[in-house]
């Protein structure tokens, strides 16, 4: 896990790129003036706001992150078709259930990303991270964490846990190296 950026003046490279793109999208133009203004905002806003926030892990492997994003987008589309069929089908046949997935990730930000991907993909909504962070004592050691997931149609619990761990968690571990 890397918390420090390579350059002092660019503490969060990914967020700067995002700001640059969002500014250009909002104005819907690529004229030189807007390019200059976008670059100015992309550098100064992270530079000013960086001291306010806790350091977050940086993306170590951007290529893999991009490939993972495409995979997740593809999964979102197929998952939505599945969920649409499940919703339109008979309600009585559905087998809802709660399952607990043990997590290997340790930092909050990769866990948040994993929970969001789980919410957007096949028939699952992430519900809670155990142990609940607020209930921990100050000096208590953080034990094994779990992600509680609600599944719309639960066929094989172990297979679903393995899919989530291999398909979504392993790339995140690689991307953030933690």
């Amino acid at each position, binding site marked *: 896990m890397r918390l420090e950026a390579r350059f002092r003046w660019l503490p969060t490279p990914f967020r700067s790129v995002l700001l640059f793109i969002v500014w250009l999208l909002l104005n819907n133009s690529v004229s030189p003036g807007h390019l200059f203004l976008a670059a100015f905002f992309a550098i100064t806003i992270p530079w000013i706001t960086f001291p306010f926030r806790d350091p977050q892990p940086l993306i170590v492997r951007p290529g893999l992150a991009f490939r993972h994003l495409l995979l997740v987008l593809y999964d979102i589309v197929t998952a939505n078709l599945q969920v649409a069929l499940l*919703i339109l089908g008979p309600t009585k046949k559905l087998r809802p259930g709660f399952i607990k997935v043990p997590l290997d990730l340790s930092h909050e930000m990769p866990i948040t990303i994993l929970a*969001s991907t789980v919410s957007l993909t096949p028939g699952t909504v992430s519900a*809670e991270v155990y142990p609940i962070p607020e209930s921990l004592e100050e000096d208590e050691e953080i034990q094994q964490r779990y992600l509680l997931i609600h599944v719309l149609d639960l066929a094989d619990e172990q297979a679903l846990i393995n899919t989530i761990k291999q398909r979504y968690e392993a790339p995140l571990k690689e991307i953030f190296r933690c």
Partner: protein
Amino acid sequence: MSEWIVSILLLIGGCFILIGSIGLVKMPDFFMRLHGPTKATTLGMASLLIAAMVYFSYTHDGISVKEILISIFLLITAPISGYMLIKSAIHHKLRAKDGTKGLDNIEED
């Protein structure tokens, strides 16, 4: 040609939005109702906004890509609001449908 693309995308988007709301009405308990709006409606919006993108690109001169901002925003925020909703539902100890598996996985807070 692009008229056809816009029409098909619009119809797909409308269908998904309708399916999301049908899921909201049809499902028996809160946890199952949550699945419709968080997934189907989000994809419906994405498809509708892509249709808007194509439409404005060929009616106005030049390409228009700013509609994609709303889809990105919805894709990022839908899981967060879903998470907050299910957390408050667990906190209020809403009853899940009979026959739900793994209810003992929910811990007391």
